[in-house]
Each structure stands twice: as C-alpha cells, then as structure tokens.
C-alpha cells in the first residue's frame, strides 16, 4: 500500500516541477521535457536517482526524468568496461524498450487511426 502512495507523491512532485517550468519558466513542452531528462541524467551521475527509484518505484521510473537516468546507466555500464567508446555502445541499452515501443506503437496508431482535431 505504501508503495502506491510513494509512487503517487513522488511522481506528482516531478510533474509539479514540470508545470512550474512551463508556467513560471515559460518553457515550451519540448524544452520542459528536455530539461527534465537532463536533470534525470545529472541525478544519476551522483547515484541519487537509483535511491529515488528504490523509494518510489513507478513514481521515479514513469516520469521522463527516468529516461535521463536510464541513458546514463546504460552508458556507464559499457563505459566501465570499454572506457569512452563504451558510453556510445551502451547509452541506449536500458532505454531501448522505451524508444522502440514508442516508435512501434505510434507508427501503428498512425496507420490505423485518423486525427480528430
């Protein structure tokens, strides 16, 4: 039960921060998402995002910040083995599911549906 609450609160806070970026910072949706992804990457650099995931579960993995975390995670796991070139080898390792499934599903929806305006 507690894990649902933690997911709700942490996920909600990250979205609240996103809303502030848009309303007060006057950032566009793309700018906002890019900022949050970079923030997730930076937090993972300090090993902090893993702790957030342990605490909040989906509250930390569902927001777009986890995308930044996953990119760094993938980059580091190959980077530890192969050095600088390892970063490029591993960067999409963990996020592969996210990007490939989005490409697949958006393509299929675009084929079978029509925009409604």
């Amino acid at each position: 039960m507690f894990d649902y609450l933690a997911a709700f609160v942490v996920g909600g806070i990250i979205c609240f921060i996103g809303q502030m970026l848009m309303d007060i910072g006057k950032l566009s949706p793309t700018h906002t998402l890019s900022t949050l992804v970079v923030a997730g990457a930076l937090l993972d650099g300090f090993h902090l995002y893993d702790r957030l995931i342990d605490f909040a579960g989906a509250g930390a993995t569902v927001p777009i910040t986890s995308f930044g975390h996953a990119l760094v995670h993938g980059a580091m796991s190959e980077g530890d083995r192969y050095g600088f070139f390892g970063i490029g080898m591993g960067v999409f390792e963990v996020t592969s599911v996210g990007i490939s499934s989005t490409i697949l599903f958006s393509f299929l929806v675009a084929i079978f549906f029509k925009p409604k305006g």
Partner: protein
Amino acid sequence: MERRGKQTWHFDQPVYIQGVGTAVGPEELKGPLGSSFDVTYDNLYAGQDNWELAERKLMQDAVETALKDAEKKSEEMDYFFAGDLLNQIVTSNYYAREIDVPYFGLFSACATVMEGVALSSLFVDTGVANLTLTAVSSHNATAERQFRYPTEFAGQRPDTATFTVTGAGAVVVGKKPSLIKVTEATIGKVKDYGIKQPFDMGSAMAPAAADTIVTHLQETGRDPSYYDVIVTGDLSRVGSGILRKLIQDKGMVLDRYEDCGVMIYHQDQPVFSGGSGAACPAVVTFGHLFKEMKEGRIKRMLVAATGALLSPLMIQQKESIPCISHAVSFEREE
C-alpha cells in the same frame, strides 16, 4: 476614388455588395451566430480525406454561395482576390485553379479579407473591373499543425490563446446598387510592439488595430459615434480590452465596439480567449453583420480586420510579432 490623407480611400463611384457566402465548421455552428452561416459542417473533415482538402471545400462552398446570391457565374468575375493562412496560400491557389478568373493571391494573415475587399472595391470604383470576387478561408486543424502543435498533442494552452475559426467567407463586389455600399477603405501599416508569444496574439495585434482605426477616423474627419458599430477581426477578449484603452489614450471613446473573435463563440465553448483566423472576420461580417445591416439594425459600420504576420520559424529565431490592420467602412443604402 478620392484619397483622404495618406492611408484612406474614399469611394465616390458606386461600389456595392452583390452577394455573399459563408461556410463554417462544427464549433462555429455551435456558437451564437450558428444560424447566420450559409453552409455548415458538423465535423472538421467536411467529407474530405484530409484537412487541407476540407479547407478548400469550405472556400468552394463560400464562393459558390456568393455567386448564387449575386446571381452571377464565375466567368463574369473580372478578378478573383483570395488568401488564407497556409504556407504559400495554397488553399486559395489550389481553389483558384477551379475557376477561370484572373487571380490575385493575398496574404495579411487574419486581415486578408479586408485587404481583399479594399482592393476589389478600388478596382470597381476606378473602373478596372465591373465585378470582383473575394474569398478567404482558415481551418482549425490546418492552422494548428502548421503554426503550433499536432492536433492530438496534449500541450496545455494558456487563457490568452485563441481558437482558429474553421470557415470561409466570399463576397462579390460590383457597381449595381444594393442595400450595402462600400464607402471607404483604410490601408494599414505594419506595427510591431515587441510581443513574442504566439499564444497571445490579441496583445500583439491591438496596436495595429488602434493605429488603423484612429487613422481612419482622423483622415475622414469622423468621431467613433459616426458608426453604429466599430468591429475588429480577432483581437479576442484580451486584445479588445487593450484596444479600448489605446483608443481612449488617443482621446476618443469607443463605446459601440465589438470583436468578431468574441462574437463567434459562446463563453463556455473550449475556445480560450476567442476566435481567430482569416475566416473569423469574414464569416462574421458577411453573415451576421451584413444581415443586421440588411434588416436595418446597423446603418454604418467600420470593420477593421487584424492580422499577426508571424511564422513558427521567426518565433524560434526569437523574433517578435509584426501585425497589421486593414479597415473598410460599409453603409446601408435606403
């Protein structure tokens, strides 16, 4: 034609409205002026395969209705003036291939309709043409996908945003006397007061509207009370408030004033600050306002259409939004 000052044309030869036609989409049909439109659709596709074709169909419907109203055929038109919001004004160009009339493609965004009426009236007044056809169109989906975001994108719009009108308006102008006479036109200058937010065009366009309206009144030597109503194209709720103040600052009082963007929708429709788009002033003027004139409730009217002359690329390059307003005055002939 006699010039008044630098920007105003006074038509001393007969220039009359011969016929009008309007076509609109679902949101406009649901609005307070829904019954004043000639052709209406309950969905954005208008029976076509994509939105660009739908917009073209709206322009076709408006033109065919206007020609029928004027009891004329397209071959009898000397010139065709048309414009819309799409890149390279494709709706107008691609529709123009359907009719065999010499064509002027126009662009001043949402001010295009009055630019067209002004030019077509000048042609009739000076004898260059006996009959002219003018048409404009806009479509909510084609405008959204060109200027802003994909229509199914869950981006949040602020309260200052406006809702592009899905519609088209067409008018036939000629010498034969009718109930509605075109008396003057004032050609606007481009004004840019540094507004950069494309979701707040009312603030960007208000100074241009104020400049054109004040210039018109000064050059014709009239007071705002000369007109039963002064109408702007699509300043919306935000822009119309600003306009009143700007006119006040110039020492004039604008008490009989309406905005087409505010008139075309109910306040509880999901349209934020009001309507916008090239079709907005066109369908409201040619539909509702001309009906009011024909039925004698309005005798003298000034319509100042306003346009925001931006493109998405300019906004990304951090440029501000230059705007323009063209005004035409109409009088009821007894």
